[in-house]
């Protein structure tokens, strides 16, 4: 009997000393086991590193055309120029590094901005329901069916003609964000519709919690996993859109972007493949990285898999 008792005591102690595990802890454990997701995280880690430390790691300054002076334009990749030079003598490798920052800034900025709108619209529509819901969802449908890219081009063209100097990245972020929230807001609304019927929400109401408290403290934390997944794929989409826009010339000419680099490579009379292929690869790898990262997060955070 005493043996039994000590055993009981021991298990109790074991439970006591083990650390509490949050849902996020469980998700991270699951994420760590996923090789593809880790690869995605690694890729984006490198891109982020390039974006932050670009000026320190790039072998040549942004506007360096010393190769031009030396008559080494459109030179194939070599030890001096790992990815070759373009037709005005820029080092392609350095330019790729400088292009990471604007790609991430626009991708993340637009994704976060559109998510803020999506969360506001989706949570209010889903939580309050009724007329507010109907109105907000009709409104989001307008944004869904609108030919967004066309709209974007027109807007940016107007902006480019009225601003004399470069207009930076802010406008692109703003416009992509405004055009991108509708689909996500509907996904968040659906989650709110489901969660507001849960008993823990009723329990909060019974305790006297305000609607604001219920939305932000009870429902939103349970939607956070979805928001993270949506943001990740939204970043991927916005990186492509930004590349497309700058490829078409609708971006600040003073900022080096991967899309612009591809466009310049086409302008060169005799194509030098490295001039277009490397920025193309940079875009593909970045987008792919966010997509597999998003998939990994989706699996890791899936509430159906909770223990």
């Amino acid at each position, binding site marked *: 009997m005493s043996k039994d008792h000590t055993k009981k005591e021991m298990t109790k102690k074991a439970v006591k000393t083990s650390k509490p595990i949050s849902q996020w802890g469980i998700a991270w454990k699951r994420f760590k086991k996923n090789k593809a997701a880790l690869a995605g995280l690694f890729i984006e880690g490198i891109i982020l590193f390039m974006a932050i430390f670009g000026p320190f790691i790039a072998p040549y300054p942004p506007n360096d055309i010393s190769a031009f002076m030396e008559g080494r334009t459109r030179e194939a990749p070599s030890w001096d120029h790992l990815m070759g030079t373009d037709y005005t003598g820029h080092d392609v490798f350095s330019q790729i590094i400088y292009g990471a920052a604007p790609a991430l800034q626009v991708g993340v900025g637009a994704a976060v901005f559109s998510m803020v709108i999506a969360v506001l619209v989706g949570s209010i529509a889903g939580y309050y329901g009724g007329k507010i819901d109907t109105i907000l969802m009709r409104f989001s449908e307008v944004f869904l069916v609108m030919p967004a890219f066309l709209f974007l081009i027109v807007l940016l063209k107007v902006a480019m003609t009225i601003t004399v100097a470069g207009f930076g990245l802010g406008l692109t972020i703003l416009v992509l964000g405004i055009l991108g929230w509708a689909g996500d807001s509907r996904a968040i609304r659906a989650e709110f519709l489901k969660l507001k019927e849960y008993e*823990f929400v*009723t329990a909060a109401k019974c305790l*006297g919690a305000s609607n604001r*408290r219920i939305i932000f403290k009870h429902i939103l934390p349970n939607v956070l996993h979805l928001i993270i997944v949506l943001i990740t794929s939204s970043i991927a989409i916005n990186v492509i859109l930004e590349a497309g826009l700058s490829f078409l010339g609708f971006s600040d000419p003073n900022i080096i972007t991967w899309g612009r680099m591809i466009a310049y490579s086409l302008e060169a009379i005799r194509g030098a493949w490295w001039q277009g292929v490397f920025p193309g690869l940079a875009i593909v790898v970045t987008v792919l990285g966010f997509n597999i990262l998003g998939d990994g997060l989706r699996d890791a955070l899936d509430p159906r898999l909770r223990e």
Partner: protein
Amino acid sequence: MKELPKNVVLEVEHLKKLFPVFEKGILFSHQTGSIHACDNVSFKVEKGKTLGLVGESGSGKTTLAKTILYLFHPTSGQVFFEGIDVFKTFRSKNKQDILSLRRKMQYIFQDPYSSLNPRMTVADIIMEPYQIHRHIPKKEWPIRMYELLRLVGLEDYHSERYPHEFSGGQRQRVCIARALAVEPEFLIADEPVSSLDVSIRAQILNLLGDLQSKFNLTYIYISHDLSTVRHICDEVAVMYLGRIVELAEVNELFESPRHPYTKALISAVPTSKPGQKSNRIILPGEVPSPINPPLYCRFYPRCKYHIPICKKKDPKLEEILNKHYVSCFRGKEKLD
């Protein structure tokens, strides 16, 4: 304010809750009827007493409880708590009045798994009522939280854990602690043990009993397990299809049930006395649909004692003996 009879804390008058039933049309869905989940229910509960609410699943017990607490919007009827018109207060949108009423009445959910937010620690869950009501100074919050944890039989280290790390019984203890954090006077426990292991049901029920005597709480205890009801309650109301069909003091109800439905329910309770023959009454047929129920006695299709009037009129809940109410045309007879 309403003057309630001495000792009465809760009075429910003609409470009705209908849920609309929709049918999908070609373009629009239109309402085809209503679920009469809770239909013209009246009763009183005295201070410090426990009213049992029994009935099969789907009879409207949860709906009744949630409507009393304004977690469902009532279709009609009134509820008075200590003389305060509950629905009027909630509709008034006066934040102070609403909060003070919320503090008085609390609810324990049937399912302790879904009634705790999976993203909050136990400490956050129990201290949330303090954030909402601010009835105690902030520096005392953790002290009070630990007191509550111990009071419901948990330990200090449980506070930083998440709901998924607990068993059903422990979760129900957390739910009880959360409800107690507002220092309520009245608690509705909606089948608090029915989703728990049989082995720990008694512990939770004992805990509820201890808390009642410690804080002089008034309870409505909802259950479909009549043996625990007999143990715990002072008065029992039997529900059938959204109606109270019989209401009496507990011993009176168990010893001389008058409604045929109550008789059937009681006959189904296993007796512990050896040698006693079980004469279980098997009800014919199924529980009818609560959607658009008949205008005559709702128990008629399953009743073997019915007389012609039962299919013509709807019986009212009448006091046939002192504090013994029955809704049956033959309630005054001793049917066997």
